[in-house]
């Protein structure tokens, strides 16, 4: 039995002549929080709509819990809850009525509404018309609608859009809770890596419809090769000494220089070499690119 909640195999999708998803092979393990990252217009929302069968994929390219989506639409959707783009809500109904309507459609006991409203912190506005909600409140209501049926798989498209910092933290904690305590699988899309790296266990990076990276957060970190950053009293002399001794300088400017990190012993030897050649070393240490720069590097390559 497949251990994957979502699997796409060479998924390609186009709107007319414009290809929006190119040969996408995504694998979302069960129980993971999969951060689906990419700049605006990268194809994230289109992919999510394909996963929900809102856009029809070619056959045998999308599998939800191991079942092909087109031939198992209803049984797949029964196991999913989703928030796609801006929340889809009826403005003339109250927040609670929006949830009751969903309960009617899904055959869920209406008592679940109060519980779900409490989870997203909207109990106080339950009887207010949803059309009068702020963007953040609408977003919470959208998440409540997605959570209502207690689905095994949640697809959240930029769920923190419009939320204030407290709201963002609450949603983040909610996602972690759902995945760890309730064993849910969550696919959460975002264009902000910083938001994803705090919660996600797995990451997929998409740009221009192509999946450029897929793996765990640790694997993403490991992509970034560490370097040794050296600050000295005479950068030019230090560079010359290192080059003369066959050491590759990957970056150099008037304030610092970087060479490839191999191990701590090698770093010590570099320090000794510079000091013996009358260069005063102010600082020396391992530097690793943060994920944000890594994300920009990856997405700028295609």
């Amino acid at each position, binding site marked *: 039995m497949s251990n994957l909640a979502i699997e796409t195999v060479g998924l390609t999708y186009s*709107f007319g002549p414009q290809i929006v998803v190119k040969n996408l092979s995504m694998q979302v393990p069960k129980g993971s929080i999969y951060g689906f990252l990419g700049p605006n217009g990268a194809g994230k929302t289109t992919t999510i709509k394909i996963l929900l069968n809102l856009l029809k994929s070619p056959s045998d390219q999308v599998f939800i819990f191991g079942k092909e989506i087109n031939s198992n639409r209803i049984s797949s959707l029964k196991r999913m809850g989703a928030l796609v783009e801006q929340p*889809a*809500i009826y403005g003339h109904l109250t927040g609670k*009525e929006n949830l009751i*309507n969903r309960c009617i459609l899904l055959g869920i006991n209406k008592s679940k509404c109060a519980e779900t409203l409490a989870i997203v912190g909207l109990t106080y506005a339950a009887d207010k018309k949803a059309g009068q909600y702020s963007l953040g409140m609408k977003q919470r209501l959208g998440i409540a609608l997605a959570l209502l049926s207690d689905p095994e798989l949640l697809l959240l498209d930029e769920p923190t859009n419009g939320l204030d910092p407290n709201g963002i933290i609450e949603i983040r904690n909610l996602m972690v809770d759902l995945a760890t305590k309730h064993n849910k699988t969550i696919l959460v899309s975002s264009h902000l890596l910083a938001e994803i790296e705090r919660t996600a266990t797995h990451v997929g990076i998409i740009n221009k419809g192509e999946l450029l990276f897929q793996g765990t957060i640790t694997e993403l970190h490991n992509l970034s090769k560490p370097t040794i950053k050296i600050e000295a009293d005479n950068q030019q002399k230090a560079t010359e000494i290192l080059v003369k001794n066959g050491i590759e300088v990957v970056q150099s400017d008037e304030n610092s220089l970087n060479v490839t990190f191999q191990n701590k012993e090698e770093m010590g030897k570099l320090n000794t070499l510079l000091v013996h050649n009358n260069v005063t070393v102010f600082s020396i240490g391992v530097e690793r690119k943060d994920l944000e720069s890594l994300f920009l590097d990856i997405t700028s390559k295609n």
Partner: protein
Amino acid sequence: MRSFFVSLNSEFYKSRKTLAFWSAILLPLVICLLMSWGFISQAPKLANNSAQILWFRYFTAIFGVMGILLLPVLVIYNTYAVTNMEYKGDTWKSLFSLPLPKLSIYASKYVYIVFLTFITMLLFAVFIILTGHGIQLIKSELKFGEYNPNQILFRSFSKLFLSSIGIISIQFLMNLMWNDFLKPFGIGFLFTIMGIITANVGWKYVDYLPYAYPNLAVRNIMQTKGDFNKMLIFDQPIYNSLIYGIIVFIIGYFMLAKKTIK
């Protein structure tokens, strides 16, 4: 089947606070009250009429207004209002991402619009009977109570209701195609005017124009001149209305099934 009924229940729940729902109830009430006020104020002139003629004059006055213009406009508005709820909240995508067959979602919306139209027609018949008898309570010289119009009223409004089925399907299809008020309303209104003109001039192809069917139904009833036994519920325009309704309903479903939710 369960999916269809839950979807239908949801349609009622969503729309119960909207103008479309309340107009289906209030329109017959307001028109009947206005017309009864007119009869009350004209009571001395009408007092010589027999009960059967009184009922005929009373109900055809309402029936004429309704069939010629109000019914098509009400249908055009109701189909717009019921579909626009989904466009307005951008909720098509959430409806279609629920574990419900697309046919249930589509059919429940259609049936709900048909149901709203049916309720309006039924209420027209009920309110005409109630206000007719109410007029006699205020003006006893108008002997509405001496004739029982119930059967003919329900038959006439059934005919009018059936004549609107074709228009409902066409308007529903247009509203699914376009997230717009002007296009379906404009086209629907244009066809309604065309229906009025072609029915009045007796165009030989008028039986093929669904927007003319309510008008043809009214003309058919008017031609009985009070001898309601001459009235047939099912005539060619009614059959055509049902055929249009079914064919366009099927076309609409296939269009919706292929609809891209961008």
